[in-house]
């Protein structure tokens, strides 16, 4: 009789435990959790777009001097910050003496020779256009070639290489 009661008690305990576990696991499958769904789009593709002047007139200068500083405006109309670097398209011993600086005072006021100079333009704000400028001059004081006669309307192609700042 005693053994029978013990066995019935064990059976009831097992049954209760079973019921509990089943209810827990059943609720795991049907728990009141909502699935939230959203479509997240990545940032817009970067657009690099810079406007540079077609032509820059450096005026007049003597063979052993330098031209006036010419202020050149550039516009960043893309959606990312960019770097602009002017480079000579063809080897030109005169225009190899072209110098650039971003500002007339402060950190970026030192003239740097073409090929070694570049400037950054920050990303445009809500206006969509970030205007910036730099100064350029032709400095023939260190020119070692010979200028035996006037060179009127002497031209050379300078290409502005634009890249996204990375």
């Amino acid at each position, binding site marked *: 009789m005693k053994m029978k009661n013990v066995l019935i008690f*064990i059976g009831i305990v097992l049954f209760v435990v079973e019921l509990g576990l089943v209810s827990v696991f059943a609720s795991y499958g049907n728990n009141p959790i909502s699935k939230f769904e959203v479509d997240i789009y990545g940032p817009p593709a970067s657009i690099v777009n810079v406007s540079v002047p077609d032509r820059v007139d450096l005026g007049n200068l003597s063979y052993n001097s330098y031209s006036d500083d010419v202020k050149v405006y550039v516009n960043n109309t893309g959606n990312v910050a960019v770097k602009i670097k002017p480079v000579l398209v063809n080897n030109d011993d005169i225009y190899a003496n072209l110098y650039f600086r971003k500002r007339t005072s402060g950190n970026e006021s030192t003239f740097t020779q073409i090929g070694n100079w570049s400037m950054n333009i920050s990303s445009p704000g809500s206006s969509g256009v970030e205007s910036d400028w730099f100064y350029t001059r032709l400095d023939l004081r260190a020119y070692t070639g010979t200028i035996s006669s006037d060179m009127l309307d002497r031209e050379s192609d300078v290409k502005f290489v634009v890249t996204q700042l990375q």
Partner: protein
Amino acid sequence: MLNLLLHNCNRGLFLVLLILLVDGVSAYGFSVSPGILNMDLQVGEQQCGLVDIYAKNQIFSIGDRWAYEKSNDVSRYNLTSFDVGVNSIYDSDVFIAGNKRIKVCFSTEKEGIYHGILMISPVEKNAEIGVWVNLVVGNLKRVLNNSGVVLPITVEDIEEGSDSVERYRLDFSKVLFFEMDFMFFMSLILFFMLLKLRKIKEEQKGLF
């Protein structure tokens, strides 16, 4: 009448001169998107990217240059794709009237990280836009640290990490199945014990 005609002619001439003057100081611009092409590819696999060019009627020449080390200075990219072992496929001359999407494809025969720049140049203009090209070839994943340096991490490392997470993930269906089996066997044992108990009782009754 003649005065009016002359007046109109002068006004027209003035407008033409004004347009020419404005044109003389005009600026040229065109757009390229995106500014950076990042590609993860396997050795021997060819992968392509799309570059949008927006411009008014203009012929563009496209070329690529490469460097052994990543740099923000375009002049350091002075190697050809052949020099670094990259096969690049794209149209080198395109005419753009409005908008055109250019397909550029790259493949390599060696694992590694390749840094290049795709130069898009209008033939008759003084601007050139460079699109950075970063190729991660082989079992490498691109992880950029704060300074922008590419740190290679093997795929095996990443998979090991994810395995360790999987290992500790609880599968409730398996637990439930195991628990049901356990309860079934326990019930079976209980049933046989009850039968045994009844048998003992019957034997005891028989004795008395």
